[in-house]
């Protein structure tokens, strides 16, 4: 009921702020009275409100933000120094042909219910992951367990960094003594499916048609296993992580240190309390009250300054989220299909102003449109290479010249008309997130000022994907160069230029384009090749070529590289936050809570001095 939701827009927000403040004060007083001597860390997160909350990480709803405190991956990947930080895994070794990855597991690790953690638990998690289309299975042939503390990943082809990372950073959350009964029926299905795929590859389309029944049967059996698995909703949440979930309510979660955890000796935090994160305004209120030790809400400049001003113990760190925010153009629609028009639009927008207004703490991207995020640009493209490529710096005069040269003209009111004399009217579709909406509004205002009639339409999350894939838009705001979790350009180009990529499908990017030398560049093929194990020179060559394609043909226009804005309170309840240069901060895109947990397990975060 939108009407009801907005009638008392201010009243609700003020009440919520009071409620958040009151809850914070209540938590504060409780902590003071009951937990004297305990070191408590306060964060914020989201989860299903009880009784909907359950302990099955596979079932719909999941376990929310509790996951990072309770579950652990084999390794934590730090894009900052491209190192793997041991968690449940101790060491790893790759075979010379990169088709085998052997991981030695930490010994003596226990699940929260007392069962020992073994290699069987890793296999169980990955087998159930197969049922959920985990991307790692595109290359993974199988997992072996030579002994209780060794896991061997066997790959179909030499494994690149991307897939190795995918395997190593997945959280191991399905103990075989609980989830083994669901993993068991999946094994024969995997074999059946592998045989079917081999057959299909060998016999071609006509055979596939004859075998359609087999594919249908496999899907039916998978669905049956999934349904049984989803109906399992335990009250307890079991993991190997450093904290045990004690209570869950509608407003907060409480965790206690797992005394038998492998890192218990290093962890100085006795308890974690998590406030519910319904929206950013509530978290701002918590931060203003100084009742949260760490949170990362997207925050406008003035609000961030106000939070810091009122909390002298608080500071901000802004590590990269390894993704760029910007516009996707629909190349399937007039006039966006005209490269000259896209060039003019790119030059008519003051991207730095958009950044300042919508997400001040982002890193400006003002010259090129490369796909590769700005912080990783120098790893792949030399300044000499970039110097030869076209820049799209803010220059309304140049934008006007581009349009005039392409046959566009202005009407009496100053608005641009197509070469056919039709008034241009564009729409920017955007999600309702504050940074997206403010960014879209800023771009729209600038285009209107330049003479391109433009307005913004908010699209609900449920309809956003359909809108993009159906091509029902002129421009959309979106995360573009998205290297989150893996820090690998292969995921960026798979998304922007790959066959079936989210953005390439949306913007209708062609399969082939002309290269700088007039030769055809097969972009889908190159994007696919980049996901495979390649010699470094070839990998660099492909990245350079695909970056050139993005910059030349402009399917996207990046505006800023998103930096997470993390507020941390030093010395109130906890202390020892490392400064921004610490490589652990670079893992924020894998999950912020994972970074906090790593600081704890490494013994960096301690009680107040």
């Amino acid at each position, binding site marked *: 009921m939108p009407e009801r939701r907005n009638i008392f827009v201010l009243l609700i927000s003020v009440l919520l702020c009071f409620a958040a403040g009151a809850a914070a004060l209540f938590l504060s007083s409780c902590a003071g009275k009951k937990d004297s001597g305990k070191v408590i860390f306060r964060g914020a997160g989201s989860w299903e409100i009880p009784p909907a909350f359950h302990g099955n990480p596979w079932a719909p709803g999941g376990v929310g933000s509790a996951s990072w405190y309770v579950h652990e991956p084999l390794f934590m990947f730090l894009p900052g120094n491209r190192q793997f930080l041991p968690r449940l895994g101790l060491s790893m070794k790759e075979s010379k042909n990169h088709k085998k990855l052997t991981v030695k597991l930490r010994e003596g690790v226990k699940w929260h219910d007392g069962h020992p953690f073994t290699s069987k638990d890793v296999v169980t998690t990955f087998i159930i992951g197969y049922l959920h289309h985990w991307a790692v299975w595109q290359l993974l042939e199988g997992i072996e367990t030579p002994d209780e503390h060794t896991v061997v990943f066997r790959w179909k082809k030499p494994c690149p960094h991307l897939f190795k990372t995918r395997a190593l950073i997945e959280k191991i959350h399905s103990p075989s003594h609980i989830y083994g009964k669901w993993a068991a029926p999946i094994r024969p299905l995997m074999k059946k499916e592998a045989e079917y795929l081999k057959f299909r590859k060998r016999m071609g389309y006509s055979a596939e048609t004859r075998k359609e029944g087999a594919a249908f049967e496999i899907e039916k059996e998978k669905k049956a296993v999934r349904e049984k698995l989803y109906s399992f909703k335990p009250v307890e949440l079991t993991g190997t992580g450093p904290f045990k979930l004690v209570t869950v309510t509608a407003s907060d979660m409480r965790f206690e240190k797992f005394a038998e955890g492998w890192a218990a000796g290093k962890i100085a935090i006795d308890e974690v309390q998590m406030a519910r994160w319904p929206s950013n305004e509530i978290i701002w209120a918590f931060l203003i009250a100084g009742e949260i030790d760490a949170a990362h809400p997207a925050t406008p400049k003035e609000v961030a300054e106000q939070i810091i001003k009122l909390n002298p113990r608080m500071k901000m760190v802004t590590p990269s989220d390894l993704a760029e925010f910007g516009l996707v153009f629909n190349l399937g629609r007039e006039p966006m299909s005209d490269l000259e028009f896209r060039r003019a639009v790119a030059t008519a927008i003051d991207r730095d102003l958009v950044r300042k207004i919508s997400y001040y703490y982002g890193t400006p991207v003002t010259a090129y449109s490369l796909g590769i995020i700005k912080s990783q640009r120098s790893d792949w493209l030399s300044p000499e290479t970039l110097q030869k490529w076209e820049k799209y710096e803010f220059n309304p005069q140049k934008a006007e010249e581009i349009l005039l040269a392409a046959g566009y003209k202005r009407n009496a009111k100053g608005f641009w008309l197509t070469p056919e004399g039709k008034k241009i009217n564009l729409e920017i579709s955007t999600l309702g997130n504050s940074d997206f909406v403010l960014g879209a509004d800023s771009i729209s205002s600038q285009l209107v000022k330049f003479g391109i009639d433009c307005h913004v339409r908010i699209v*609900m999350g449920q309809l956003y994907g359909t809108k993009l894939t159906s091509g029902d838009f002129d421009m959309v705001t979106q995360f573009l160069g998205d290297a989150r979790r893996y820090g690998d350009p292969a995921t960026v180009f798979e998304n922007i230029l790959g066959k079936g990529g989210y953005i390439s499908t949306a913007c209708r990017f062609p399969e082939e384009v002309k290269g700088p030398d007039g030769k055809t560049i097969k972009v889908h093929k190159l994007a696919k090749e980049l996901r495979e194990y390649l010699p470094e020179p070839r990998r660099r060559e492909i990245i350079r070529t695909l970056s050139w394609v993005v910059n030349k043909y402009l399917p996207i226009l990046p505006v800023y590289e998103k930096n997470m804005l993390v507020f941390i309170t030093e010395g109130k309840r906890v202390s020892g936050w490392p400064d921004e240069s610490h490589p652990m901060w670079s893992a924020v895109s894998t999950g912020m809570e994972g970074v906090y947990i790593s600081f704890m397990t490494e013994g960096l975060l301690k009680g107040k001095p």
Partner: protein
Amino acid sequence: MIMPRNTGKRLLESFTIIKHNRRAFFGLCVLVFFILMATAGPVVIPLDMSQDFLMRFQGPSWAHILGTDFAGRDIFQQLVHGSTDVLTIAFATAFFGSFIAVLVGLSAGLVGGKFDMLMMRIIDIFLTVPNFPIMIIFASIFRINDPISFALVLAAWSWPGLARALRAQVLSLKHKEFVEVSRVMAMPYRHIMFKEALPGLMPYLMINFIDMARGAITASVGIMLLGLVPLSVTNWGMMLNFATFQTGAIYVPSALSYLLSPMLAIILFQYGLICFASGVEEIFDPRLRS
């Protein structure tokens, strides 16, 4: 019941009644002010939506009498230009909603029988079907770009309650002498509905008209957030939403005027409508005149 001989005399008489009711006169002044703002305002005060980062969240000054917003744009200009759409949507929604409600409620009450039953079921459907999923479907199918279509969408969900109430009122009026006489005289339904029954229901109708207009301003924000209509940052409701949620102005002392300006404009407009309604009641019901 007032039955003036001609429209001019009727208007003058109505104005005199309102003039003698201080509250209603205040309401009238407020409404005239807002109507002037919505009609002449945009001609007199140009809208400059250029963004200036260094000027964001400025307090009131001679250059910007109500300060500036999150993008350094003048708030007063936005209020003036936003008033056109806000008032059009508010009044048009109230007009369409009331019109449908009168048509359905009065006809159902007067005709009765199976027609009444059918109308009641339609009303029940509109009252019980949650409008949120319907709006989502609307948003995925239709594109609405003008305030009148916008008002029609809002009105589509605001009439059933009033229609049901009007039907109940008509059922109680139905057996009054003046209606019975009209029936005996074989007057057409149109005459009975609009000339006999409707004037008696006018005070009630006016209050609901104002309520619908008020509701339309706040509902329009929801409709924009659903994506059914394009986002308008000069819409007062959306300005308030931006100040509270999107830009965090609620937490920034220097942004107080960005928060308060649209809020006060909405409050004043709604209070003006409520005050004016008390005068309208007196026009249609002489017993209320002091």
